[in-house]
């Protein structure tokens, strides 16, 4: 019941409350009136009958004294002025019928009049009333009146009907009044609700609720409008910020694109124009050594060798730099990549490049990752060729390649038992052209790990190294574990 009421609108609830209250009040009032009427009217009826009976009794002392039933019957006949009295009789002191008045069948009356012969009692729709007849303080008989109450009850029904009609009419008036008056409360609430729904649907925070009263609802409307004001202001502020941000991003993008184009042009130019003079220097040194050998002293030849060596070195540096620039600029072609295959390819090519090296490989099972296969190949190539290079002085090289999952990442590592390095220089390890060994010991430009770091960073991973001089080095890199890759 309460559940159903809870679902109703405020309007329905208000009307329900008013109607319920009115109807309960009306019914209670009606009930009070009816109870009062029943009590008093019944008492009046009884006292009427009593008066009538007393009157007859008073008049009938002579008839009884002189044993004159005719006189008694005359007296009784006066009862015809009261049509409700349908029968009456006078009993002598022995209780026998002395005189009668009948408008109905006498036997019905006799049946009703049986029993105790005093006071009054209601029998069916009738009232039976007894009144004693006294003479000189001595009871000489009894008057009995039998009244039909049908008329009386009919009147009472009319009265009840009237009361019911009044209740009904009042209820209707209450219904009409409540349906008008509830608007005072429900209309502002409905307006507020409609405004709220409209704002929620259209997301238009410029709308305002209309204030139509100064009560609690009015306060609510004011507070609501105040909140809208705040939201609207915040939205405008945010839109302004967004627009500014977008503009800034667009500007930055243009700048970046320009910078990228310049970088591209620069690297293109390096690639073409910087190599040509090197090639020429190398070519002419070579020709000098070949064609003009007779004119050269031992020292002269040594100088030319040095020049040739430097030129070659510079060529390698340029190539490495270009490669490094490319690993930063080339668009990543990310796809599901099988690291086992990549690793196998790299190892095969390393085996070819390092014949005769005795290396014990421990290679773990690799996962599938989401990455650029060519770039990842470059990572492994750099790491594994470093491991091979820096274990060259070992009689038996040991290189372990493995992976473990850790905090949403694959942590890959390459561990060797090579010459290692001093950890105090670890921060330099992944820098461009940073070397931790002299060229006499180990060749290389120092670009490899810089490439590794750049590629791994572009794959949203990290790189770091652990090493101990003369014990070996472990290089780590991570790649995020992506959900789109099938395990």
């Amino acid at each position: 019941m309460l559940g159903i009421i809870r679902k109703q609108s405020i309007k329905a609830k208000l009307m329900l409350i008013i109607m319920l209250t009115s109807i309960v009040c009306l019914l209670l009032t009606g009930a009070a009136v009816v109870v009062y009427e029943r009590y008093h009217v019944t008492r009046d009826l009884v006292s009427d009958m009593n008066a009538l009976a007393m009157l007859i009794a008073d008049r009938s002392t002579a008839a009884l004294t002189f044993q004159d039933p005719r006189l008694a019957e005359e007296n009784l006949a006066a009862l015809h002025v009261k049509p409700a009295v349908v029968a009456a009789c006078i009993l002598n002191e022995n209780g026998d019928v002395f005189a009668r008045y009948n408008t109905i069948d006498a036997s019905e009356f006799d049946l009703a009049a049986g029993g105790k012969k005093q006071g009054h009692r209601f029998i069916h729709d009738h009232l039976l009333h007894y009144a004693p007849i006294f003479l000189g303080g001595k009871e000489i008989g009894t008057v009995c009146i039998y009244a039909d109450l049908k008329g009386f009850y009919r009147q009472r029904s009319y009265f009840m009907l009237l009361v019911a009609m009044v209740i009904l009419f009042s209820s209707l008036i209450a219904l009409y009044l409540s349906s008008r008056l509830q608007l005072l409360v429900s209309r502002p609430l409905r307006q507020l609700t409609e405004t709220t729904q409209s704002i929620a649907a259209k997301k238009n925070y410029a709308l305002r609720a209309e204030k139509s009263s100064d009560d609690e609802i009015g306060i609510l409307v004011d507070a609501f409008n105040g909140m809208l004001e705040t939201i609207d202001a915040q939205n405008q502020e945010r839109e302004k910020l967004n627009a500014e941000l977008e503009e800034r991003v667009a500007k930055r993008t243009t700048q970046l694109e320009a910078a990228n184009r310049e970088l591209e042009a620069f690297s293109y130019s390096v690639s073409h124009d910087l190599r040509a003079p090197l090639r020429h220097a190398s070519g002419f040194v070579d020709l000098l050594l070949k064609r003009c050998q007779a004119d050269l002293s031992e020292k002269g030849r040594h100088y030319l060798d040095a020049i040739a060596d430097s030129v070659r070195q510079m060529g390698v540096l340029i190539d490495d730099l270009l490669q490094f620039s490319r690993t930063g600029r080339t668009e990543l072609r990310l796809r599901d990549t099988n690291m086992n295959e990549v690793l196998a390819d790299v190892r095969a090519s390393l085996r070819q490049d390092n014949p005769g090296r005795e290396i014990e490989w421990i290679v773990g099972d690799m996962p599938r990752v989401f990455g650029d296969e060519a770039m990842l190949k470059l990572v492994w190539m750099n790491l594994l060729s470093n491991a091979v290079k820096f274990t060259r002085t070992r009689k038996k090289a040991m290189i372990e390649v493995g992976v473990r999952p850790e905090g949403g990442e694959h942590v890959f590592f390459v561990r060797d038992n090579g010459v290692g390095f001093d950890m105090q220089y670890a921060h330099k390890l992944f820098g461009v052209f940073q070397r931790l060994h002299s060229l006499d010991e180990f060749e290389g430009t120092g670009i490899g790990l810089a490439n590794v770091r750049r590629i791994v960073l572009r794959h949203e991973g990290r790189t770091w190294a652990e090493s101990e001089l003369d014990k070996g080095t472990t290089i780590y890199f991570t790649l995020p574990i992506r959900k789109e890759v099938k395990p």
Partner: protein
Amino acid sequence: MSDARTILLAEDNPRDVELTLEALAEHNLASQVTVVKDGVEALEYLHCEGKYKDRRKGNPAVLLLDIKMPRLDGIEVLKAIRSDPVLRMLSVVMLTSSREEPDLKKCYELGVNAYVVKPVDFEDFIEAVKQVGVFWAVINEMPPQGG
């Protein structure tokens, strides 16, 4: 094999020309080489125009084409050749300093016959030029000469 097979070298840098000729000379191919200094001259030669209007008719066995040249660059020359009905079957070999990927892609899309990066090391350079020269000017059969 015909002695008359010529090699057209389009190269703006005189040092590169000298070194390339030195390399070809080591294989006795230098005498067959004609050198043009840029793309415009290369096309004039091929079309027998300008200062080449009196040259003997016929396409060279191969065009060794540098990419970075003044006026018309190598890629533009290649494009012009491939869209010319008389020249389109000419063997063209890019001979260039770098292997920048956009260049490689463009050249192969335009139908280049080969793309050779000049090695910095002279020994390697000689070897590369020799192989290119011998293959295209000696071993390879030229396309039938039209018109």
